[in-house]
């Protein structure tokens, strides 16, 4: 039997004498073995972006969703309308927290390679995104991060050993060994429990912000996702809610160019910017040099002030680059040009701020080297402290029966029964 739809359709088309349609499948500019090329990026001058009043209408600031808010120029000077004019102490704090994040990442990456844990995710090259935001927000604002904003916890002076306990899933893990390493939760640090399901935190942050507004609170919420994750439905639901209720929330899109092996084109980057997603929702949208911590700080402060003044949500795209693999399970050399990260035109966030501080005369190479050494020791000491509580798979973990806790507030009979059954089975097996 012939396929009535298939053949009929083809015949009909052949007779119409039209050119065949073509499907566009995006291709990144460079694959392994090819040379990276970032010349197509339009990088505006550091002082090019105007800084609208925090109360400006989103419609009056559309250009900012397509430009690039920058502060640090090519000569390491802080310039332009967005210059937050921070005092030296703050600049050096920023530098220290970024370096601490990098040292923490280095140590924990090594711990994974040494078999002390199953998994790790670095934020190399993206440190400015979380540290800049963390310092611009109030300590009691609520963060709904994804998995690459460990810098927020570090900048909020959360104990590193506590984070490492989580990474090792040991007896000191506040999450009782239930989450994949790096999926922290720290309520006291205003750090929401991280989900492995991408972008689910987006509507949750908006809901938290709506609740805060409905209660007449003064705290705001901030959330982060990767550019690849903006394709998820939750992202768009969150934007709709944020726009409709003018929720006091900052929605950060960390455009680090890659979502595992898929370049940003698969999330729509060839057609427009991610900050421009804001335009359709009538939300303020800023596109920011994510490797310029002063720009990240300034944009976040602007958005936070706007939210606190009931001006509503802001969507910030942080234009940055994921220098390392997606995670310890990833090998980026299999899908992207090896030299790409070194050619990234916006440089390295730590190197840029360091040079700025040196130019200002408040810092020098020797002090920087000494700081790096000190931080490495701090991280090492924290790791030793955490390892006393055990490392993954070496028997030091929360008691087995804890597996059944926290499913519900009170343990129902069927879980009690299963818990007892498990204990009996282990006992019978002589373990």
């Amino acid at each position, binding site marked *: 039997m012939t396929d009535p739809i298939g053949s009929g359709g083809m015949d009909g088309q052949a007779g119409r004498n039209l050119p065949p349609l073509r499907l566009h499948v995006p291709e990144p500019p460079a694959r392994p073995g090819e040379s990276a090329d970032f010349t197509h990026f339009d990088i505006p001058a550091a002082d090019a972006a105007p800084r609208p009043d925090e109360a400006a209408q989103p419609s009056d600031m559309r250009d900012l969703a397509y430009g690039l808010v920058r502060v640090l120029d090519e000569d390491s000077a802080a310039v332009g309308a967005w210059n937050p004019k921070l005092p030296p102490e703050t600049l050096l704090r920023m530098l220290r927290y970024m370096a601490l994040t990098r040292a923490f990442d280095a140590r924990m990456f090594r711990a994974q390679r040494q078999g002390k844990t199953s998994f790790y995710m670095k934020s190399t090259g993206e440190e400015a995104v979380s540290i800049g935001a963390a310092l611009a927000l109030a300590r009691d604002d609520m963060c709904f991060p994804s998995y690459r904003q460990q810098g927020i916890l570090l900048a909020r002076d959360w104990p590193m050993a506590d984070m490492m306990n989580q990474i090792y899933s040991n007896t000191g893990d506040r999450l009782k060994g239930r989450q994949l390493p790096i999926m922290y939760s720290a309520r006291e640090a205003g750090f929401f429990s991280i989900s492995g399901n991408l972008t689910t935190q987006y*509507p949750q942050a908006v809901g938290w912000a709506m609740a805060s507004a409905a209660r007449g609170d003064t705290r705001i919420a901030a959330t982060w996702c990767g550019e690849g994750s903006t394709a998820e439905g939750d992202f768009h639901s969150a934007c709709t809610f944020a726009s409709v209720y003018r929720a006091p929330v900052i929605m950060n899109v960390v455009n680090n160019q890659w979502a595992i092996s898929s370049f940003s084109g698969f999330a729509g980057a060839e057609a427009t910017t991610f900050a421009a997603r804001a335009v359709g929702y009538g939300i303020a949208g800023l596109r920011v040099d994510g490797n310029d911590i002063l720009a990240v700080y300034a944009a976040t402060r602007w958005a936070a002030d706007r939210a606190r003044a009931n001006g509503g949500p802001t969507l910030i795209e942080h234009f940055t680059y994921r220098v390392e693999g997606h995670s310890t399970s990833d090998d980026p050399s299999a899908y992207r040009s090896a030299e790409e990260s070194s050619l990234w035109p916006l440089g390295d966030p730590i190197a840029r701020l360091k040079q700025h501080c040196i130019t200002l005369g408040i810092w020098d190479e020797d002090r920087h080297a000494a700081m790096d050494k000190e931080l490495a020791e701090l991280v090492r000491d924290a790791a030793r402290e955490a390892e006393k509580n055990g490392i993954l798979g070496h028997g030091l973990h929360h008691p087995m029966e804890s597996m059944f806790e926290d499913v*519900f507030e009170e343990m129902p009979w069927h879980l009690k029964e299963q818990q007892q059954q498990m204990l009996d089975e282990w006992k019978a097996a002589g373990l």
Partner: protein
Amino acid sequence: MNMIQAINSAMDVMMERDPSVVVMGEDVGFFGGVFRATAGLQQKYGKNRVFDTPITECGIIGVAVGMGAYGLRPVPEIQFADYIYPALDQLVSEAARLRYRSAGEFIAPMTVRSPFGGGIFGGQTHSQSPEGIFTHCSGIKTVIPSTPYDAKGLLIAAIEDNDPTLFFEPKRIYNGPFDGHYDTPAKSWAGHADAQVPTGYYRIALGKARIARAGEALTILCYGTMVHVVEDTVKTLGIDAEIVDLRSLVPLDIDTIEASVKKTGRCLIVHEATRTSGFGAELLAQVQERCFYHLEAPIERVTGFDTPYPHSLEWAYFPGPVRIREAINKIMKD
């Protein structure tokens, strides 16, 4: 009160008592809900606490998770249970697991209300019974009332509960009990004993089943609309069956179930949801595990068929009196 008024009254009572209770969903605010379950609440409690939402179920539940984490007690409505699937990830991966994954640091104390079930010629997308999908997932409670009195007491308990709860409302019996005879005029709750609903606060603990009819010959496990269909069928058959209205599937009142089946030695399970991997399979396994040596006949199930919900053939699909009678006869023959 009818069931809608009872549900409305539960939310009213809880909003009055607890300023952290907020009601949200498509059309629930100004209009008071397509079934009028939230009527008058916005006028009384203001738009900060009762508000319409965009049409995005994953957004509604995701936002409710965040509100719960903040410290509110959201009562989101999903307009029809058939539309809960876009929110599945937020319910299953987020709300249900937040307490566990944060080891108690964050909770999602929400009560998701949603009209469910068939018998109203709603076709495929206004008739489904998705409870089995959620009872399969750890960390979320599932409650299904069958009378106005229970609906109010259970809803109050669900709102007070610190765990995320799905509150499925059998819409076929919103306005009156349904005995399964689709060609006879609809009945009303007026005059029904279980429609005597106090206006004030009372609660019915989650996880306690109700003996809708005591009996010695056979145990029938059911919930929602089916309680009434079963009651009427039993009446017309003149059989001394014990009808157990489960009221909540998670947590499940296993003690009442076990005691009843051990007493009668026979068991029939009735639900509207499709058969394969339905909650009836779990009930059957539980009864088998606990009561095997007391059973005098194989356990039977009457359920919806494993097809999408049909429109014109609704009454052939619906597990009505004919199929229930057949199953009872079969069990009693042995």
